[in-house]
């Protein structure tokens, strides 16, 4: 298990500098929104309390939890000052979730899974402060799989909010496979190359070979970013720099003419977060190359892990893109 800590300061965008109305009867609100395709989650605190979906509940075909045969739209609410809420508009195939913690001050673990074999979502983790009102938004892409619970650690204190992705053994390869299953990466030869590289990373982790792990992760990121930037101004659109990469042979064979190469969000950003989390957890490992952009322009895709638009200070975020 490897963790990487990303710290975001509490100085965020001021949403309402001159508030003229009342404020809620609490100083801060941590609000976690799973907005899209059926990522179910519960939050646990250090005391073992849980808020969100009941992991023992049965989920129906659209992700609504059923407890004792009855729909339970509020789920567990064991954490003091917490609330959770599921919502599924009539006939929709997915169910959204929101978890709120009033006056958060603890280290929480977000446990998430999916009813689908593969799913990806943009998850918002917002810390709203009142008086004065300000918002520290944190948006992150996550990949999830059926019957697999993954974790994200969220620590909230006066010093800031800290997000700590947890990459368990097998997660990296599983996420790469999920991204391909979701068709966020194309063509199949690109998936084949990335899955092979991810498998090599997993082997390196198991074997304790940090140098090889770093090499494979950097190669993985290079290919991934190359796919993501394909077609952008100034981007590489050939495989010449991948000479000597046996996992990349499928790409060589595919060529470059008349093929639509891409790696897109939400899976793309989730995979970058995975790879950089692993890479930065290695001793003495710097940031990987962004890949693809010859002119060093920042076209590497969305922000990952760190506060993005309107967000708080990047703090110790290790994620940079296009740093050629």
């Amino acid at each position, binding site marked *: 298990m490897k963790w990487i800590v990303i710290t975001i300061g509490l100085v965020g965008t001021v949403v309402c500098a001159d508030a003229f109305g009342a404020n*809620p009867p609490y100083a801060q609100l941590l609000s976690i929104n799973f907005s899209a395709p059926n990522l179910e989650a519960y939050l646990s605190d250090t005391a073992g309390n849980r808020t969100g979906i009941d992991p023992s509940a049965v989920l129906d075909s659209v992700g609504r939890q059923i407890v004792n045969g009855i729909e339970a739209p509020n789920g567990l609410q064991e954490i003091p000052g917490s609330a959770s809420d599921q919502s599924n508009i009539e006939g929709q195939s997915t169910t959204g979730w929101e978890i709120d913690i009033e006056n958060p001050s603890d280290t929480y673990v977000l446990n998430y899974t999916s009813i689908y074999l593969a799913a990806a*979502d943009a998850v918002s983790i917002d810390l709203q402060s009142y008086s004065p009102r300000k918002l520290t*938004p944190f948006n992150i892409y996550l990949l999830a799989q059926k019957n697999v619970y993954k974790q994200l650690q969220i620590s909230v204190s006066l010093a800031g909010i800290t997000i700590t992705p947890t990459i368990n053994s097998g997660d990296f390869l599983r996420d790469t496979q999920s991204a391909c299953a979701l068709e966020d990466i194309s063509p199949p030869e690109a998936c084949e190359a990335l899955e092979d590289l991810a498998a090599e990373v997993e082997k390196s982790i198991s074997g304790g070979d940090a140098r090889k792990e770093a090499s494979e992760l950097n190669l993985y990121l290079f290919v991934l970013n190359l796919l993501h930037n394909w077609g952008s101004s100034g981007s590489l659109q050939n495989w010449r720099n991948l000479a000597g990469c046996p996992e990349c042979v499928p790409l060589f064979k595919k060529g470059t003419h008349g093929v639509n190469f891409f790696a897109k969000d939400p899976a793309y950003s989730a995979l970058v977060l995975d790879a950089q989390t692993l890479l930065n957890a290695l001793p003495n490992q710097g940031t990987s190359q962004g890949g693809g952009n010859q002119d060093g322009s920042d076209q590497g895709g969305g922000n990952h892990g760190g506060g993005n638009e309107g967000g708080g200070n990047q703090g110790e975020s290790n994620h940079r893109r296009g740093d050629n």
Partner: protein
Amino acid sequence: MRTIGWLSSCLGICLLISAATVSAGIIEQYPLATNAVGLYHPGIDDLIPEGSVAFSVTTCGAAANIPAYSILNACNNGTSPTALVAPASLMSAMSGLGAYYIQMNFTAGPGISFDNYYYDLYAASYGGPSDVCTADLGEAGDLIGILATSQKGYAEVEWILGNSASGATAIVRTSSVLEYGGCNTLKFVFDGTYYYIFINGILEAGPTTGTSGTGQFGSLMLQVTDGGYNGAARGGGWMSNVVFASIPVGTPSPTPSMTPSMTPSMTPSPSASPSPTATPTPACAGIGCNAQVASYKQYDSPWGPETLDASTDTIALSGCMLTCFAMVMEQDPDTVNNTFEATSSTASPVFATNNSGRINFGNTAPFTGLAPGSNENYDQTVIENALCQGEVPIVHVIRISKRTGLRGDHYVIVTGEDFTIAPGATAATCRLKINDPGDSTFDHLDSYQRLAGQSIVDMRLLYP
């Protein structure tokens, strides 16, 4: 402020048109066709008498392709008459207290350019004795107005409430649905207590009360300019097919948003509630406390068929929370949705793909001034207190779709409370009134407690 500057600079003598014979209560339906009470186009005639067909009023557009005419430099610079003014006889006929609809249709001509500084459309009603037409709104007795402004595609509408020496005070700002070259309708409504402004059938402002106490419209003026403001030279601009009309109360309205039932906050008084017996005053803590929200239906046009932010669902299907939010912000759902579409991203969606219609309140930054609270367990006492604190409760319910028969999550706004007898009940109780974005028959929250399979889930308070 540019708006006030322009208004206060409009000191020229504007033309007050006297129609031949006008009677109140003429029935008009939108689009107005054959029975306009007054028709006027500057540069052609001062007045086309009632019933005239000097140029067509049956179409709103190319049929009246009149050469561009500069109509506003006078009002700005104090020279010649500038604005379109409703017939005085129409105003006179509407001078008593009561409910009136005054409808103005117009087409903005090609002389009005979105690419050239500002495009102002101003329509006002004011009752002060000395500024029948000058639109300074700086005198006690002036009532309401509306201003649409565009700068290179950016449009806004302000509802301005005058009646102060310093000029108008903007009380509502919202995006405009006015379109260059389109057929637009402005409608003022005064129901004896509240004022409303509709643009193209959509409630853009109101209800609010005027401050003059006169309870009547003074005159109406409509004018267009292109380029410059507050003393600067104005370019040409013209309108065609302008129609002033009065519609009596009770006239079937073309859109649901025009119906009196769309303004539930108009009857907040407990004394207006049907009391079954001479029982003592009920202890309903929320009576008299009303949320100041607009009223929209998620299935109405033009927003109903639109897709919800980045979702593949339509607003009509999944836009209940969006519509609730629009009601709170007093902006139509289309405008709010467009704002979300412009600011939302995959990384920080307001509504992501198929996200069940919930707003991610953390990503509603364009709408400042609103603090969304946490989800809370449903509690009527909390809601009553919230209403009296000026907070707006959004309640999460489970409903059964009348259309599909499917159960699903739904959101409604609580607007107030009354002491009435619920259907099927034998005694009056304290009942929370709602604006239901998805149902025109559910006017109380207990509607969701009476039918099997429907229920109240929880609630969220919004702190404006």
